[in-house]
């Protein structure tokens, strides 16, 4: 059964609203990914950059995000965090807090395979998956990355940063086949998926889809009253 993973940025437009949106997302998602806001998110397009700025402007911090996550009972919460906020918080302390809050996995987009060891020891110690990303340019790296992956594999759909796209030109099916040769870990495709057609297409290729910018865009437009709009969007895309 194909999975659906939704993404929103913590603290956009406020942490109270994020908590409220999580309950809506939980009704329709298998995994909920929460972005820890960062001042300079280099893998994000304009939509999620702006969400990060809104979240930071209203005083969202790592401690407040953890405190909010402690109140969530949904079992598959994943954090997306850039390397610096995690490193500065302290790997040990960060993954300990993740463990305490029941966080299932952490995605660090600027911590590639070669550098992941410094964080992975702490993720492992506290039973948190450090999620592996595979990109269209991974080429001969695909199986090396996939072999070590736990939790799930985040397959980046296309070149560039996050954000809504018209079309995809990567041969994702062949990357998924290479991955499946070496691991049972499920593969979810993300980056740029915003329409029911795109979602259906990706679900035929992989084990699930990740939708982020399209939901964050709704929040950018409707702010605190986004709830019903998110619900409507999820019904259409799933």
């Amino acid at each position, binding site marked *: 059964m194909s999975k659906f993973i939704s993404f929103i940025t913590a603290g956009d437009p406020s942490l109270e609203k994020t908590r409220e949106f999580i309950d809506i997302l939980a009704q329709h998602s298998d995994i909920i990914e929460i972005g820890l806001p960062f001042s300079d998110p280099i893998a994000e397009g304009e939509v999620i*950059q702006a969400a990060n700025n809104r979240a930071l402007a209203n005083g969202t911090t790592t401690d407040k995000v953890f405190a909010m996550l402690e109140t969530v009972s949904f079992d598959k919460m994943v954090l997306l965090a850039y390397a610096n906020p995690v490193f500065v918080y302290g790997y040990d302390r960060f993954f300990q807090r993740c463990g305490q809050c029941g966080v299932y996995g952490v995605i660090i987009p600027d911590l590639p395979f070669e550098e992941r060891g410094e964080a992975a020891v702490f993720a492992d110690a506290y039973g948190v998956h450090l999620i592996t990303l595979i990109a269209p340019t991974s080429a001969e790296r695909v199986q090396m990355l996939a072999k070590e992956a736990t939790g799930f594999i985040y397959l980046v759909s296309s070149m560039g940063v996050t954000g809504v796209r018209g079309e995809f030109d990567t041969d994702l099916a062949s990357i998924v086949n290479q991955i499946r040769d070496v691991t049972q870990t499920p593969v979810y495709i993300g980056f740029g998926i915003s329409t029911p057609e795109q979602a259906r297409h990706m679900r035929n290729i992989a084990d699930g889809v990740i939708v982020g910018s399209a939901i964050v865009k709704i929040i950018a437009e409707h702010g605190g009253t986004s709830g019903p709009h998110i619900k409507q969007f999820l019904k259409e895309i799933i």
Partner: protein
Amino acid sequence: MNARFGEFGGQYVPETLMNAVTELEQAYAYYKKDDAFNTELSELLNTYAGRPSRLYFAGNMTKDLGGAKIYLKREDLNHTGSHKINNVLGQALLAGRMGKTRLIAETGAGQHGVAAATAAALFNMECEVFMGREDMERQALNVYRMKLLGAQVHSVTSGTQTLKDAVNETMREWTRRVHDTHYVLGSVMGPHPFPMMVRDFQSVISREARRQIMDLEGELPRAVIACVGGGSNAMGVFYHFIPDDQVALIGCEAAGLGLDTPHNAATIAKGKPGIFHGMKSLFCQDDYGQIAPVYSLSAGLDYPGIGPEHADLHRKGRAHYVAVTDEEAVAAFEYLSRTEGIIPAIESAHAVAYAIRKAKDYDGSIIVNISGRGDKDVAAIARYKGEDLYE
């Protein structure tokens, strides 16, 4: 190749870029030992960029200040007006060997962007430069120069709209299109192999300066002084003096309005370890690791981080880093113009300011790296002094 300088350095980039940085690392490891490559680069540095740059004895300044015999390493006399051309010619030549046809670059003051656009014109490559909107206003003349050279200049409106954001945007662009594109990073920063490669290309400065001072003085200088933003001109002028323990290496950071205000860009003085822009190094940031909005009058030093090799030299105590305010730098800018008839870049004026401050404490020679010329800054300094002058 070792990707680190002590604990600093590394390759903290998204997976999308890993193959590109690995490919670059391999290509550089190969070509740095390739005779034909090195001969072609030396030839370009000499015939096109105008090297070697002069080591000029600043007699008036020496007499006026007392103490040190002051020598100026004249990187401002290079083609395009700064040390940036040394690195850009090396990287563009390497990019060509790798089959890349398009260069992208970030720029702060515009000196690196101009150098990249120049190399692209010379090698018939496409060039796109990313520059913060605020910097485009501060350095309007350089923006026009880049366009004249055939480059496309993109205004970066995210974040603080300065150098940091220009790097973010150039990295994003590299993830969009990597197959035919080389990112010509302008400083000794970013993921490995950039800090090492840019340092190697810039080390021509100290290779010359060490020989020149030995010819002129018959002994090593007491100190080598350079301004530091990301730190490429400083690494270049320090590098061949690092084994000479008796030579003090002094980096001058931008203290902006002062270290006791939040308006500075003094990373060594104020920064903490972090991971950003592909490297582990020191960064100006808050307690949660959010990168701080830094400030300096100088667009080239207005950066919240520092190259990893500097962070390591600082940690080991081999180099010392001092802070120079806007006010002192502007005074030095005017002083060098009047005293020696040399208008330095406002970035380089930070190093000149330290020499003015400390000259009388030395009894031998000191070398101050004049990393660039100040034509680009004249209008901005006039406005700083209250004149209504626009380019």
